[in-house]
């Protein structure tokens, strides 16, 4: 076996499986999908950060009006929390 990603084909007609290295062409597609997934995720992180920022400023405006923390929480829920990434190991 090599270090290349493994690709398997199971043939229902024969019941046999073939395992081979990923071809160069398939590797290009694989890397393209990785890049798209990265872009999707980056866009999501930006949108979520904006959502949290909006929630924080909105919450502060309610506090500035004189409402207590408990009252604001009762109205709009708890303050947004920064998501915690999986720790490095």
């Amino acid at each position, binding site marked *: 076996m090599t270090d290349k*990603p493994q690709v*398997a084909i199971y043939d*229902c*007609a024969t019941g046999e499986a073939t395992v081979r290295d990923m071809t160069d062409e398939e590797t290009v597609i694989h890397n393209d*999908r990785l890049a798209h*997934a990265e872009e999707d995720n980056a866009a999501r*992180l930006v949108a979520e950060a904006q959502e949290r920022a909006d929630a924080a400023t909105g919450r502060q405006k309610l506090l500035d009006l004189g409402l207590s923390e408990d009252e604001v929480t009762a109205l709009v829920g708890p303050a947004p*929390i920064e998501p915690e990434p*999986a720790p490095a*190991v």
Partner: protein
Amino acid sequence: MANQNWYLQSHYHAQSSHTNLTISNLQSGTVTDDQGNTTAVNSSNFPVYRLVCKLRFDTQNMASNSYFWIMMGGNQSSWDGSNMYSGDWTSKYSSQMYSNYGNDFGNSRPGIYCGSGMFGASYNYYAWGSAVTDSEGVTVQSYDVRRGAYTTIDFNTYHQNTNWYPGGVGSSSGVYNGSSASPVTYQAESGSWGFATGGTSNATYFNEITLSSSYGFQGDILLYRGAIQNYVGN
């Protein structure tokens, strides 16, 4: 036991790490009932597909640039109509009864994209516990593949006729690694995922199913076919 309508068409065990698996020649072979009658396995007699997977992904970190695709129809398939998906980024709170969801229209998804939610169960590298010795005297480290967590995937879909492929529903489940020092209520990589699709007219007939993943996976992939009558003997 009486004849039944479900048939286990394939069981592939990925012993080594794979990034792709194609199950081909889906419309082939025959089944035999208890009376000796044979029936061809094709999309007319067996229109229902049920894909059941128990997979462990080769990752120690739920990285952002991950993908897992299930492509009914191989690389040629696409899904139109309305695709509702509840991915990793929409299942933030375990206490939510109803998850948020996204919705696509048009041929915007060539496959069923599961995202990093699929990888949430891969916490085996977090070194839970210590090394143990198995029954044959072999030391098994806490990060060994044998002690990894698996994600289960269950996807059902239905091939109605040659004009319209109505789509299906699917879900996966896993667990978060639980390694956070503080309580976590906002965790994108929850390890759960759901999907429902309106179907497609672009792949009304297909002969293969392809699984494609950014990370290598090991485990079992079972494909069941459901028949319109009790064609399958015991």
